[in-house]
């Protein structure tokens, strides 16, 4: 027995250690296996051979030889097309004479109804046959022109643009038609709950400041606008000093410079004297509600924002994105998903006007769920101010914003519009390439400092329309 036992013991020992080794190996296997199969999407993105891709060409500043008009140009030759975005500063509805509000919006229509020797029909036939796209748009601060054409038609396109802004026919027939359309658009705005709320909210926020106007003016002012008013206003406003231009697409710098002289031949070179007064907005004023029987309650939240040139712009942008952005990081969306059955449409963004920088967010829900949504918004707003965001959220929001932004530039018109915007906001020639760096460079400390400053009880105002169920 003894012998046997002593014989067996070392064997057992060996067996034991073998077992331990096997167990250990198995454990290590179990431990490592999920690592091997665990998929790391960020690793795939970081190591992608496409990782270094960015906007391929550099934006350059060009100056036209005769009129010395400056523009930003992004040359890109994949397809033979060119897009030109023109911002005309100080020509938005806020800068219109108060007796003539709506005049800019009339222009957006009648400038396309014949010019120079071309009747409305022949003018538009040329545009149609050559696929030259020409459009005008009005906003609070600026008037916009957009011109898109096939490279070989650049001279015709420039000429048509020039005729439209310098020699429009202003036929009575089309002016009347435009006025009618604008008045009915204005009335339509007052009928749609969403836009009616915006109109009323603008009055609440801006008081008597011209920012309370709609681009349609009022039916009274629109009716009184004469041909002479239109002519005078157009001449006064489209001046060299007021121009900001972005060009993108298949055109060389020299061609683009010459095109600028053609587009703007004959415009005035005079100083614009209109000054828009500053405005001080009270963001802590009481909530504003319009009671109306509607299937959906629609609301806006307003808060003080920040200018795009300010160093705290990106920290605030990221904080707002975490609060109520478009991606998965949005805390409001998360809280909606967690509270079953609630669907909130919430999206907030920073809006920069000449005289006001705002945070504006839209939200909507059913009358029943609205009180809960508003309390979630308030609660999360204050939480953001107190605690800021987490390291994980920072990483997620950077990932989302840097990746989603470039999708806008699928459309060449957005590219040229951004080139113009870059000049207006002085963002620099390298903005397209650098924008993602600006986002990636934001630190958690910055965000949380800025959040404390902006996400406060005194900086949040609600405006709603609909029927909010009380109770609970």
């Amino acid at each position, binding site marked *: 027995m003894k012998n046997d036992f002593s014989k067996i013991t070392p064997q057992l020992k060996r067996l034991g250690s073998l077992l331990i080794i096997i167990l250990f190996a198995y454990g290590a296997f179990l431990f490592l296996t999920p690592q091997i*199969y665990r*998929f790391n*999407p960020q690793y*795939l*993105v970081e190591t*992608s*051979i*496409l*990782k*270094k*891709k*960015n*906007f*391929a060409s550099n934006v350059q500043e060009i100056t036209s030889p005769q009129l010395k008009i400056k523009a930003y140009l992004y040359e*890109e030759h*994949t*397809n*033979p*097309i060119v897009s030109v975005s023109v911002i005309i500063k100080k020509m938005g509805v806020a800068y219109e004479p108060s007796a003539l509000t709506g005049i800019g919006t009339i222009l957006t229509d009648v400038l396309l109804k014949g010019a120079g020797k071309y009747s409305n029909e022949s003018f538009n036939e040329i545009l*149609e*046959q*050559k*696929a030259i*796209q020409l459009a005008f748009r009005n906003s609070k601060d600026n008037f916009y022109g957009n011109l*898109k054409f*096939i490279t070989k038609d650049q001279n015709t396109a420039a000429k048509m643009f020039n005729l439209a802004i310098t020699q429009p026919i202003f036929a009575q027939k089309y002016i009347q038609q435009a006025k009618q359309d604008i008045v009915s658009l204005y009335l339509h705005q007052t009928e749609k709950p969403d836009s009616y709320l915006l109109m009323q909210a603008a009055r609440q926020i801006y008081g008597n400041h011209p920012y309370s106007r709609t681009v349609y003016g009022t039916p009274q002012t629109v009716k009184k606008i004469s041909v002479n008013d239109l002519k005078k206003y157009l001449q006064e406003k489209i001046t060299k000093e007021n121009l900001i231009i972005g060009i*993108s697409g298949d055109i060389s710098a020299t061609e683009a410079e010459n095109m600028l002289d053609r587009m703007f031949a004959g415009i005035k070179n005079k100083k614009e004297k209109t000054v828009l007064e500053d405005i001080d907005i009270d963001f802590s004023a009481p909530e504003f509600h319009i009671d109306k029987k509607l299937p959906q309650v629609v609301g806006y939240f307003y808060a003080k924002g920040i200018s795009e040139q300010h160093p705290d712009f990106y920290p605030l942008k990221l904080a707002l994105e975490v609060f109520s952005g478009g*991606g*998965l990081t949005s805390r409001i969306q998360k809280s909606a998903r967690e509270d079953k059955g609630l669907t909130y449409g919430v999206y907030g963004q920073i809006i920069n006007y000449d005289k006001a920088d705002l945070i504006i967010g839209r939200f909507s829900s059913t009358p029943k769920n609205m009180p809960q949504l508003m309390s979630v918004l308030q609660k999360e707003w204050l939480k953001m101010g107190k605690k800021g965001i987490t390291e994980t959220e920072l990483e*997620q929001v950077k*990932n*989302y*914003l*840097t*990746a*989603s*932004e*470039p*999708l806008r*530039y*699928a*459309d*060449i018109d957005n*590219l040229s519009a951004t080139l113009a915007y870059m000049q207006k906001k002085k963002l620099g020639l390298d903005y397209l390439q650098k924008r993602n760096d600006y986002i990636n460079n934001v630190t958690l400390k910055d965000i949380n400092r800025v959040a404390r400053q902006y996400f406060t009880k005194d900086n949040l105002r609600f405006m709603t329309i609909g029927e909010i169920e009380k109770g609970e």
Partner: protein
Amino acid sequence: MPKKFLYSLLVFLICGSFASKASAALKNAEEFFLDNGLQVIVIPNHKAPIVKQVVLYKVGRIDEPEGKGGIAHFLEHLMFRGTHKFADGQFEKLIEANGGISNAATSHDYTYYHQFLSVDRLELAMYLEADRMTGLKISDKAFEKEREVVLQERQQRLNTSPTNKFWEKYHRYLWNGSLYGEPVSGTSKEIRSITKEDVLEFYHKYYKPNNAILILSGDIDVETAKELAQKYYGKINSGAIDDRKNNIAEVDDEFLHNESEIISRRKDVKVLRLIGSYILPHYQGNSPSLYSLILLSEYLSESVTSPFYKKMVTDEHLALSSETAFDYLNRGNSMFAVYAYFQESKNLLKIKKMFKETIKETLDRLTEKELQKVKNRLLAGMVYQYDNPATAADITLRWLGAGYSLADIQQFEDNIEKVTLQQVLENTSMLNRVYPVWGMLLPLSEEKNEK
């Protein structure tokens, strides 16, 4: 999660509008095949660091076994419900977290999946798309849950607008037994009868690289595309794919040569609708008939100065609007259709008559000069569409999904320019011989007045 599916009418309208703006662009696009048969189309566009990936499977509603309508669409939904590597819903979450836009759609002819993203995220999307080409894994629970979603989607579609029921009824009548007349989603009864095994069998049979097309459109060159396509899709085995041309049932000739109509009456109809469809052959990409009909459709309705619009809306005030569409991007028959929206049912007969007269008159009056203008109008704006990498991918998938080639898209402009006035007259004259199948949606209350 709402998942779009293209029900036949929608396909009809979308194809019509895209097709009429397609062009000879895509000059720098290239095509190649992997060893496993995967067809790859690369459309380089270096404007911005973005890209769209499309994976299209050449299988849709018309390839489904009898009584099991809706499998393709059901499968499209399930493709988001997880694989052996990824949990339910993770596909979309990963794409969304990376700033991308992702969706899928099913038509009668094909099913496709697409992601539009920042180009540095393309490999992620390729990894995920390749993974679900072979790795689909569905639990019984997820399957039943998705069945409810599909059923709900179908109900919603039928209930949201009175016109949807009408279109479905009309298409079934129009196609006279062909599966093109059946809704892509399948009927509720069919959706209920589909089993998990049915779907998996369909998946394993048709979701093969040699039955698929990969489109990469955006900031990528052909060399990189080759490398990445091989890396992610190259190892997937091809499968035995049968020739499914027989599935495309020819429409009964007898039926087409007898004018017929179907009327639907509903009490909630305010705007009355008339549609007349001519079912025509499937034209090859080099057929002058194809381009003649495209030009005719463009001429008849693409602008407010078009003959139809002018006659019926501007001059005679019979209709609120009127248009034509030529829907040729199908694996099966093409179709030429005329539409009118109007308010008074007493105008119905006049409008019907006027459609036929106007086509004839228009063709009689068409001059070389006028034809050139139509060509210019049709071609001029097309390059804009192709400049958007997402839209370029969309248009390409519609042509290729219908069995046309990349060369057909690239030669579109030449093919349009080549068409002579004589050819237009000859090739469209069948519209005076083939009879349209009419569909009418009218209000219920006026029934008595008419009788």
